[in-house]
């Protein structure tokens, strides 16, 4: 043999390279760590190559977040910067609605309406520590008195983070159903055909408004999504990740995970006044992964062009996607 076979197998070295790379990408990374990695790479060409190879593949997955890329610079700090940016945006949009102390709240009866425009988000902070986040194009009325806290979701989507109080129930009414909080975080969406109630934490109950005793009711646990129409109520389960994806609007981001272009464009349309048209059914069926700032249509167009290779034209105020 010209050279003896190295002791660690190629598979071992590959594993080790992946180990290093994930440490650098996802965990705290000091100068000392960097020095150790450099030393490991310098130990043999096999190490060096394994790392180049691992990094090469991983860099390609950057496109998964491609829609977000214009906003990032370099790997490590950007993550922090990005979430910081989102938090600042959220903070800027947060609207503190409360006036007075919590006692005042409990005696506070008049009904009040809150709404958001297309592309806008608002957070309502209630005196009892609960909060309500309104997504794009949403309208609610809020009524609070000594005995109850009640919201009517007239249109759109809202996320409820409710401090449970046995004596003062919190209810949300929408589309002929009522959701009763039993100590929860939940999302109510009434912008599509069916009403959807997703339970993120705690417990809640959903029932038909007029006939609460009838079979149209269900108790929800975390991960449950109740889908209710005039005639029926069903409950499906979603993974944590799927739920997190649905809630990504809270951070101003839309997450697409194996989403068809048609669905993606539909979602984007909720946050933007511009109209989207997909000229070709085959294009509509193509699926995408990625995250896009909800109100940045240009970023989406950029990726449709460069990553998906689509033609995107703007005519008569419409944005047209084609092959």
């Amino acid at each position, binding site marked *: 043999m010209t050279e003896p076979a190295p002791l660690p197998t190629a598979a071992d070295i590959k594993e080790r390279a992946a180990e290093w790379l994930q440490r650098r990408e996802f965990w705290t990374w000091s100068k000392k760590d960097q020095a150790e990695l450099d030393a490991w790479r310098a130990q043999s060409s096999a190490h060096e190559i394994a790392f180049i190879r691992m990094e090469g593949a991983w860099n390609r997955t950057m*496109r998964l977040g491609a829609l977000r890329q214009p906003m990032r610079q370099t790997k490590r700090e950007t993550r922090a910067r990005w979430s910081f940016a989102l938090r600042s945006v959220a903070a800027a949009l947060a609207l503190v609605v409360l006036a007075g102390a919590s006692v005042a709240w409990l005696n506070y009866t008049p009904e009040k309406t809150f709404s958001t425009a297309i592309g806008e988000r608002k957070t309502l902070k209630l005196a009892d520590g609960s909060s309500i986040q309104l997504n794009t194009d949403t309208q609610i009325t809020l009524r609070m008195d000594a005995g109850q806290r009640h919201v009517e979701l007239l249109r759109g989507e809202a996320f409820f983070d409710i401090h449970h109080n046995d004596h003062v129930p919190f209810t949300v009414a929408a589309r002929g159903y009522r959701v009763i909080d039993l100590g929860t975080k939940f999302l109510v969406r009434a912008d599509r055909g069916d009403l959807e109630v997703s339970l993120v934490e705690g417990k809640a109950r959903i029932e038909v408004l007029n006939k609460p005793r009838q079979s149209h009711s269900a108790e929800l646990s975390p991960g449950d999504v109740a889908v209710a129409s005039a005639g029926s109520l069903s409950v499906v389960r979603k993974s*944590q990740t799927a739920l997190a994806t649905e809630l*990504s609007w809270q951070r101003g981001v839309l997450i697409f995970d194996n989403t068809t272009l048609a669905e993606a464009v539909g979602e984007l349309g909720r946050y933007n006044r511009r109209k989207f048209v997909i000229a070709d059914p085959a294009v509509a069926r193509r699926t995408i992964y990625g*995250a896009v700032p909800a109100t940045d249509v240009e970023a989406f167009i950029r990726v449709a062009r460069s*990553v*998906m290779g689509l033609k995107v034209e703007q005519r008569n105020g419409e944005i047209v996607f084609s092959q």
Partner: protein
Amino acid sequence: MGDTPEKNVEAAGTHGPGARMTMPDLRAWFAREVLPHEARLIQYLRRNWRDKSEIEDLLQEVYVRVYDAAQKQLPEAARAFVFTTARNLLINRFRQQQVVAIEAVADLESLEISADEPTPDRTAIAHDEFRRLQAAIDRLPPRCREAVLLGRIEGLTGREIAQRMAISEAAVSKHLTRGMSLLSDLLHREPLLNRDLGESDPS
């Protein structure tokens, strides 16, 4: 033990003056010019080497030889150089083994490598890249995929991923390591995706 593979490699692979490279240049060169041939290279090694459990080590050996040679002098035609290196490595191994499959020899003899074959059209590949990534991601085990997506799409840190998935940080670390490792194979080796590379089989 006859002639060293390096001699053959240099005779076949390098031309002209070549250039000494800095470390970052060399790394970039390797990623750009050598790694894209991995799907074909693996295919070639598999076809010509009986013990499939040794393919990974053979691949590594080819890479190390290419890399070390490039450090001294940069080959002009990377693709030809890579396959010549692979061929010479196999021939050398056959000699040591003293048991050679006849087909394998025939295949090796007939191996012709054209140095001026066009490199894959990068723009055409870019258009398929997103789909290719999706296909690769889809093939990860579910938990692994979840961790990778949370990291890559949502930009979460390892700690945040642990919280989101309600698992330990050590477990996240394992999922990410596995995910990266699998992705490196899926992305470097998916032959249908490299259609430009895949059609022009040298044998």
